C-alpha cells in the first residue's frame, strides 16, 4: 500500500512537471513528432504532387498526378492543372494541354482572368482525349471539377472520364 501511494504521488509530481514543460518543450516535441510521421493530406484537398511543368512563355502550367478517390468518397477522380503566375496571364486564356506528356492533346482549357482577384472564375474544358471529361461554365462546384484562384495561381481540376 505504501509503495502504491509513493508511486501515485511520484506520478502526480511528474504530471505537474509535464504541465510546466509543455509550453517550452513537450508541445513542440510532440508536434515535431507528429509532423515527422509519414502522413500526407488527402490529395482530394491538396491536388496531388506536381509531375511536370509546361512552359507557356511568360507563364507556365503545372500538371499534377491524377488523384483517385477512396471507398465511398463522393468526389470523382481528377487531374489538377495550375496556371501561374496570375500576373503574367493574358486577360483570356485558351490553352491546349498535353496532360499525359505523350505528345497528344489532352484538353483545351479556356477561362477569363479578371483583374479583381476576388471576382468569380468560370472555366470551359473541351475534351480532346476520352480520358478527360469536358466541362462547361464550371465555377467551384466540387473538389473534382473546379476553377479557383489560390495565391498566385489559377487551379483547374478536370475530372477523369474512365479512371
Amino acid at each position, binding site marked *: *500500500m505504501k509503495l*502504491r*501511494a509513493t*508511486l*501515485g*504521488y511520484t*506520478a*502526480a*509530481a511528474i*504530471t*505537474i512537471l*509535464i*504541465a*510546466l514543460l*509543455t*509550453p517550452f518543450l*513537450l*508541445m*513542440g*516535441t*510532440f*508536434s*515535431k*513528432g*507528429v*509532423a515527422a*510521421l*509519414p*502522413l*500526407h*493530406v*488527402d*490529395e*482530394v*484537398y*491538396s*491536388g496531388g504532387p506536381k509531375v511536370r511543368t509546361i512552359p507557356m512563355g511568360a507563364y507556365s502550367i503545372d500538371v499534377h498526378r491524377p488523384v483517385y*478517390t*477512396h*471507398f*465511398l*468518397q*463522393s468526389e470523382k477522380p481528377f487531374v489538377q492543372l495550375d496556371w501561374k503566375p496570375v500576373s503574367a496571364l493574358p486577360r483570356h486564356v485558351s490553352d491546349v494541354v498535353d496532360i499525359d506528356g505523350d505528345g497528344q492533346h489532352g484538353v483545351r482549357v479556356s477561362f477569363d482572368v479578371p483583374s479583381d482577384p476576388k471576382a468569380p472564375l468560370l472555366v470551359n474544358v473541351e475534351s480532346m482525349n476520352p480520358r478527360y471529361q469536358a466541362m462547361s461554365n464550371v465555377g*467551384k*462546384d466540387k*473538389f473534382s471539377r*473546379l476553377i*479557383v*484562384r*489560390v*495565391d498566385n495561381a489559377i*487551379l483547374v481540376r478536370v475530372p477523369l472520364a474512365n479512371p
Partner: protein
Amino acid sequence: MATDARILPLARPSPRGIGRSLLLTLPIFIWSLLMMGFRPGAKFDPVSSIAAILTALFMTMLFFMMMRSRSTYRWRRIFFVSLGILFPIGFIHNLLVMRGTMGIPIEEMIAGRTPFCFMPIPLLILPAALTRTLVFPGSIGSASQGIAGMVGLWLALTLVMGKGWCSYACFFGGIEEGVAAIPSRAKIRKLDPRWRYLPWAVLLAMVLLSLALFEPAYCMWLCPFKAVSEYVAARNTIGLIQNIIFITLFAGLVVVLPFLTKKRTQCSWFCPFGAFQSIFNKISIFEMKIDQSRCKPCLLCQNACPNLSLSKESVARGETLLSCMKCGACVDVCPRQAVVWHIKGTQIAWKPERARLMFLYSAWALAIMFGGTIIAGGVYTILHFIV
C-alpha cells in the same frame, strides 16, 4: 480500500487564510505573466499588453478564490464560460479580417489553410493508420494552426488532465455550461441514463463514416459549434443542408437542452471527442472518489454533475463513471465531504486537498497556457473595437 474516518472532518472546511492563499497563488501569478508574454525582450503593444494583463489577473484571481474558498467548480466555471464566450469573438473576428466570411471557401481548403481544432482528432486515426492519409483540408506542419501543432498540444494536455480537457481546455463547452448556469432549477429532471451511451455511438459512427467517406464526417455534418466558428460555405444544396444541421444542433444541444436540464447536453449526449477523451481518464493519475464510509447517499453529487458522470451504481461503487471531466462540482456540493479528489494508488480521503492542489496546479497551468491565451485574444478583439 479501507478509509480512516478521522482523516477528514464531516463539516465543510473553513476558508483558507488570505496570506496562505496568496502564497499558494504566487506560482500561478508568475506563470500567468510568463504565459501572457511578459518576458524580457518581448515586443510591447499597448492594446495586447492590456489584454494580457487583464487575462493574467483574471486567471490569478480565480485561482486565488479556489485556494481561499477550497472550492473548485464555480471558479473554474467562470474561466470556462469566459473561454466559451471569448473564443468565438476572437476567432470570428480573425476570420472576418482575414477572409471576410465565416464560411470556409474551397480555395482555403485547397491551400491547406483550414484551421484545425481538436474535434476531428479521433476521426483521423483510422484513415491515417490504414492509408497514411489525413482526411482534413489543412496542413500538417504549419506552426500556428497546423494539424501537428494541435495534435501535439492535445497529447501534452491529455497526459496531464485526461478527460479534464473537457473542463479546462475545450473552447466550446463553456457556451453550454454558461447556458446551463442561467436557470436556478432544471425544468427537465428525469434523464434516461441510457443517453450516456450516445456519444460512444456517435464516436463509432463518425470514425467509420470518416474512413468510408474519407472526410471528417463529424465536422462536415454534425458539429454544432460550426455555428459559432466556421462552417462549410454553402456553395450548393448540400452545403445549405449542412449549415441547417449545424444551427439546429447548436440551438438544441447547446442552448435549449442545457437551459432545460442544467446539464452540458452536447458534451454528455453527443460529443464524439468527449467519448474518445474519456478513454484517457484511464491513464490520468487524478480522479474523483467517493468515501463510502461517509456517503449517505443523498445523490446531490449525481444531480450536480453537469456531465451525467455519476449514477446510483457508480456512487455505490465509490467512483465516478469513465466520462468524469474533473470539474469538481460533485466535490463542492457534497455536504459530508464524501466526494474527494484522489491520486491513484493512495488511500481514499487521505489528504484530498493535496490531491486537489496537485491536479489544479497542473491543470490550471495548462488552462492559462491554452485557454488563457484564447481569452486574451478575445479581450484584445473587444479592446480593439473600443479603443
